[in-house]
């Protein structure tokens, strides 16, 4: 028996299997630092595959993040997040504020060098509204005359109030005057698409070679489930402000992995940090928290006992210590929510959310107890009907629900049950109204109280609470046509106070986004309700 041979083989097996251990000293972290001299590029994490890069079809923030960089609407945002003219150079508003006439920039060009025309806009918008297209965001265009009828198959395309008067003049007629046209038109649903291309190729947005856009960047690579690469668009009219030559969106879904990729230098910007590292990165210069225009809440089904009673709903509101939840449970810098509209709306009198203080629902245990007692007396209940709090299956939602359960037990002496369902089943259940109290989150696509408050309109498909209030609906209707900003915000406050009086829900916290960004970049903009914007970003050091 050649024992030595066997032993040698065995040793070899082990060595190859554990290769690398001995090379420890030869290769430190230098491999992660790429070539120096500030290459103007950035690698960021998009977390997952964007479902659709066609501005008409995209409904999610990942797709929106890329589309915002590759396209530009009539309005775009400046570095402070204010809407300014983008692909249009001029706008004329009629006296009745219903008709807007835009002049498309002379130098606005598609990434293939051809000019952006008013016809492209007209075609793009009508395509969104075409019921055949099946665009989920078409309803954002319902402000336009004839849009709703056409989208719902009840009107014709000729009656839609979007007309290209000539190559560079676009006329838009609105149903009624609205106070936030500029903000609305920065949405990606209103971006143009190149008419002759899209008409002839329904799959144009599926591949980089056929993807033509008019924004600061153009799509150059899309490896599904792995990465999307966009490069500076040299045909962009304002290309001089764009410094980055290349932005790479990686699709790394696992939180620990992307955190480690950031640490090893493979990613320059990551979002949604793993909860366990927030505490340790909190004081780092790379850490950034930005408000995200949305609210995490529990809805009450006002047709199911005990939430048929207003006082009981209020008691369930006042018994929650929201500060404790954001500080000790969610921990990612979220803001406790005492009303519905999140912070971030600037009004002449300051932040909309701060001015809502009159109707805040803050923790008040004594009052909660008393309201519960009164409510039960009104209904003639000896004991409170059993309550089940429903949430969609997720570790984070579970943690919040358990804390709320404990708060009700301590502050109200009420034992509630917890129950969870997988997401799509959950949507079905809540839609059919099979819940007493259920979790939901709502994020405004643009920063205006209207998009938030619309949620509880009587005819809103999202309103699953069965709460219908005419006064509320009326106030919002008035606010939508009110031209004077101060009056408009006043009406919206009134509407919100009606909502906060009746409380078909209980707000828990306002969302935030958190990021780690490599400090060698400057000029990255963090808009309130979108992901970071790289138009002006620049790498200044290695």
């Amino acid at each position, binding site marked *: 028996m050649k024992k030595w041979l*066997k032993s040698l083989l*065995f040793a070899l097996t082990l060595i190859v299997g554990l290769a*690398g251990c001995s090379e420890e000293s030869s290769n*430190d972290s230098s491999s992660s630092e790429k070539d120096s001299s500030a290459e103007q590029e950035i690698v960021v994490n998009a977390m997952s595959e964007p479902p659709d890069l066609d501005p008409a079809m995209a409904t999610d923030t990942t797709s929106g993040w890329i589309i915002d960089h590759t396209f530009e609407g009539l309005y775009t945002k400046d570095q402070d997040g204010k809407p300014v003219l983008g692909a249009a150079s001029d706008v004329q508003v009629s006296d009745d504020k219903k008709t807007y006439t835009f002049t498309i920039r002379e130098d606005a060009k598609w990434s293939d060098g051809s000019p952006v025309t008013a016809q492209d806009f007209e075609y793009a918008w009508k395509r969104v509204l075409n019921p055949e297209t*099946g665009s989920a965001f078409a309803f954002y265009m319902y402000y336009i005359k004839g849009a709703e009828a056409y989208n719902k198959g009840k009107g014709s395309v000729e009656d839609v109030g979007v007309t290209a008067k000539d190559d560079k003049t676009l006329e838009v007629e609105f149903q009624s005057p609205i106070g936030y046209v500029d903000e609305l038109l920065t949405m990606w649903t209103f971006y143009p698409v190149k008419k002759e291309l899209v008409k002839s190729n329904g799959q144009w947005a599926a591949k980089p070679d056929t993807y033509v856009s008019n924004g600061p960047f153009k799509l150059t690579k899309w*490896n599904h489930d*792995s990465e999307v690469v966009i490069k500076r668009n040299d045909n962009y009219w304002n290309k001089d402000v764009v410094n980055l030559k290349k932005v790479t969106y990686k699709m790394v879904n696992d939180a620990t992995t*992307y955190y480690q990729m950031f640490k090893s230098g493979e990613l320059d910007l990551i979002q949604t940090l793993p909860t366990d590292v927030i505490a340790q990165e909190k004081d780092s210069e790379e850490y950034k928290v930005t408000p995200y225009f949305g609210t995490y809440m529990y809805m009450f089904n006002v047709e199911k006992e005990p939430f048929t009673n207003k006082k009981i709903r209020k008691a369930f509101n006042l018994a929650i210590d929201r500060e404790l939840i954001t500080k000790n449970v969610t921990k990612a810098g979220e803001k406790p929510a005492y009303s519905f509209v999140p912070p971030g709306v600037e009004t002449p009198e300051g932040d909309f959310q701060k001015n809502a203080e009159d109707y805040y629902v803050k923790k008040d245990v004594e009052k909660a107890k008393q309201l519960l007692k009164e409510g039960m007396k009104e209904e003639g209940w000896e004991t409170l009907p059993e309550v089940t709090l429903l949430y969609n299956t997720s570790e984070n939602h579970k943690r919040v629900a358990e804390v709320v359960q404990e708060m009700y037990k301590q502050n109200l002496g009420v034992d509630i049950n917890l129950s969870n369902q997988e997401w799509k089943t959950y949507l079905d259940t809540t839609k059919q109204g099979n819940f007493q109290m259920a979790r939901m989150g709502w994020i405004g696509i643009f920063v205006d109280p209207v998009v938030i408050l619309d949620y509880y309109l009587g005819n809103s*498909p999202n309103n699953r609470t069965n709460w219908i209030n005419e006064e509320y609906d009326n106030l919002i209707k008035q606010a939508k046509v009110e031209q004077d900003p101060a009056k408009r915000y006043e009406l919206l406050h009134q509407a919100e106070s009606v909502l906060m009086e009746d409380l078909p829900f209980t707000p828990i916290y306002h969302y935030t986004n958190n990021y780690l960004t490599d400090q060698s970049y400057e000029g990255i903009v963090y808009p309130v309700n979108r992901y970071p914007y790289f138009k002006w970003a620049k790498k200044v050091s290695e």
Partner: protein
Amino acid sequence: MYIVKRILTMLITIWVIATLTFFVMKVIPGDPFASDADVLPPEVLENMRDKYNLDEPIAVQYVLYLRDLVTFDLGYSIQSQTRSVNAILADGATASALLGIQAMAIALVFGLLLGILAALNHNKIIDYVSMFIAIIGISVPSFILAPLLIKYFAVEWGLLPVASWGSWEHSILPSLALAASPLAVIARFMRSSMLEVMNQNYIRTADAKGLSTTKLVIRHGIRNAILPVVSFIGPLFVFLITGTFVIEKIFAVPGIGRYFVDSIFNRDYPVIMGTTIFFSVILVVTLFLIDISYRFIDPRIKLTSGGD
């Protein structure tokens, strides 16, 4: 004759699987178009459902599906409407298969080697060390092993990238993580099979005839001992090349593993069907090939329709 019969059985198996999946899938509550923002007007929703034949009665949907299936048209994903299921499978399967083949190679080479060495050194130190490694390989789950590999190889020593996909270096760590547990299983299996064979009389005879140890082990030992291992590397191979959710997620591999899970959460019907059929086709075909390969490994086995 045997082969024709087998192919027919394969087709029937796939049809049964497709049918069962189709109906079970429709029973799960939830709507592929539902989301937290219910913004589609009913009229538009109608159009979308129409596009995917969802407004037809289930029986009609089933017939339509089978009709398309026969022409290998698996339809379009509902989640990513510009991507066909065929494209998703083709893209994802490439990455998953590459990973699977590498992992399989690692698992086979080192697993067999460890198993054989352990058997030849029965109850000696090499045996114990090998089996210790095997037990670790079996008992440490991949979601622990993977982060450990990342921590040392990528973060601490900077030898390899943490994750993502593109170059060969990117595939090393996930292949290792994927190989660990099959490697251990193969090693244990091979060891016991080898021990059994080496105690057979024909081995003693060969030894007595003065055959060299190397020849004895390779020609008579391994060749006989490997048969039971071959029977389970088939399904193992299928499992490895069709992607694994955990490893692919941790290493951000653009494989097919996530679609098995995500498609169900999204109620992406065409993708659920596509992944299931894809998996079953590969499985039955591989099992078939394995059966045939016996013929070559062990000439004593004859392919007859009477069963094997």
